[in-house]
């Protein structure tokens, strides 16, 4: 009796296992620390920001060497995007000038984007200090932080962008 009921229980266990979804499981486990080498994402609360710091003044120098060729003097734009100005053009019917200063809702996006994608011909070549400095400089050009500001993992997420409150989230709703 004992052996029969054991066999029955074993059969039951096998059938339960067969009913659970099976997948190939061919991913190689990696630690979150190892994943860091590829992790470029910065969240609005500052999660992901690396150590380091940079000032408006340092940013100005780097900007002149590595960015000005495409974004023009003081971020005035063309051939690439204008990085400065446009405040007051988002209302009414005038053509909008959307820039970091007039449009962007989060300051952390600057760090995230410059580090991953700029300068165009050499993405991911800037140090964390350089990216902080460039972020500080572009924010200062837009009058959002003072000329003596320094950006780091603490100060950057605290910067309140002027257009933040104009953004509203549609998902999961439907939009006309």
């Amino acid at each position, binding site marked *: 009796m004992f052996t029969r009921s054991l066999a029955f229980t074993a059969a039951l266990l096998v059938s339960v296992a067969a009913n659970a*979804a099976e*997948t*190939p*499981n*061919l*991913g*190689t*486990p*990696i*630690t*979150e620390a190892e*994943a860091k080498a*590829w*992790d*470029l*994402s*910065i*969240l*609005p609360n500052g999660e992901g920001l690396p150590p380091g710091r940079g000032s408006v003044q340092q940013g100005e120098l780097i900007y002149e060497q590595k960015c000005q060729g*495409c974004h023009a003097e003081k971020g005035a734009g063309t*051939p*690439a995007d204008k990085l400065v100005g446009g405040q007051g053009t*988002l*209302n*009414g*019917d005038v*053509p*909008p000038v*959307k820039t*970091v200063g007039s*449009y*962007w*809702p*989060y300051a*952390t*996006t600057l760090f*995230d*984007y410059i580090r*991953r*994608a700029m300068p*165009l*011909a050499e*993405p*991911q070549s800037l140090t964390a200090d350089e990216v902080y400095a460039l972020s500080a400089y572009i924010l200062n050009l837009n009058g959002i932080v003072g000329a003596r500001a320094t950006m780091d993992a603490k100060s950057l997420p605290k910067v309140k962008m002027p*257009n933040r409150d*104009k*953004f*509203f*989230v*549609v*998902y*999961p709703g439907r*939009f*006309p």
Partner: protein
Amino acid sequence: MSKELDADQVAGNGLLDRRVFLRQGGGIIGAVGAAVGLAGYSRPVEAETLVVPEWTKKPGALFEPYTQPSKYETKVARGPIPPSPYNGIGPGSVRAPLQHLEGMITPNGVHYERSHNGVPDIDPAGHRLLIHGLVKKPLVFTLDALSRYPMTSRISFVECAGNSGGMYAEKPAEGTAQSLHGLVSCAEWTGVPLAMLLEEAGVDPSAKWLVAEGADAAAMSRSVPIEKVMDDALVALYQNGERIRPANGYPMRLLLPGWQGNMNVKWLRRIKLLREPAQTKDETSKYSLLLKEGKVAQFHFPLDAKSVITKPSPGVNMTSPGLYEISGIAWSGNGKITKVEVSADGGKSWAEAALSGPVLSKAITRFRLPWRWSGGPAVLQSRAIDETGYVQPTREKLIGLRGSRSQYHCNLITSWGVAANGEVKHVYA
């Protein structure tokens, strides 16, 4: 025109019942069918003398490993090729030649492309997909590993959220179906459901979003709600039966059926599970909708129902008065197309088109309608309706709702003006 022909007119300016062509040769209504079928076509005035052509009198070419389109079909090409102000690098897009295609599938060589810093040259052996963040067990996948997973195929359109943005302009932009609307394409995509890979990694219940990132020089990245991923997201490896073309994400791309093309991240290399969206450049600075009074609608993901007539259309002009088939494409990011209506009088009256071929959720659907062109001026329009009951809006309605500065998600009704000489132009009606 005979009485029978009048009876087939179902809307103004010569639009005929969608079943007219199907009737030809059909016994019961054969008489009407024959009259419509023949009376409409203009026949060549003089009969040709038939000669046996040269290519029939000598053996043809031998086998090629991978064939190309006929050399006579060079007009079926992506374009316009944008100039680069940055010494041959940089962002841009090229459009699919919609007016030269038929059916629902876009051939791989002419699928539209939007890229933010070029097409990376990826060696598949060195490519990795990393899944990490709010998971129990971060994982790395090789292409070989993913190739062993059970696959799913689905036919899905991909459309850039900036497609048709020129239609918001005050004056009608000159252009073709390709240059105005060509940032949409449709293919059969095959790959591994992303939900399966996430389950293997063990998603933490606090994860509500993920950020997907490409291995290109823009490291293009977008945040995606987890519900969508669990619903129908694929890590696509194949496009119309062959490995995804480099311009479309080789060796793997994210497929989010019906949602903004930009979110269908190409060259997919990293997925990080998060509590909240990452607020990347392409979901804040770009692909958000600036509304009246300066408000900005963010995270409007599905592309709403839309349609455009491809034949006739600018460059695919009318030749002589008579019977034609109007043909076009319709699609909706919210499900199946249930109906397409066509007008030849600028929206005064509408006739229901036939939906031709498979009608699939979030795929391009071909529509067709017979039209007897009198040779006079006409304004052709099409409007798509999807299974949620959503009706493609007029220009007036869409701009009334959003203003004209939102740039993205433009799905208003397109008007093609047909002149008496047969030339077709983009107009506002």
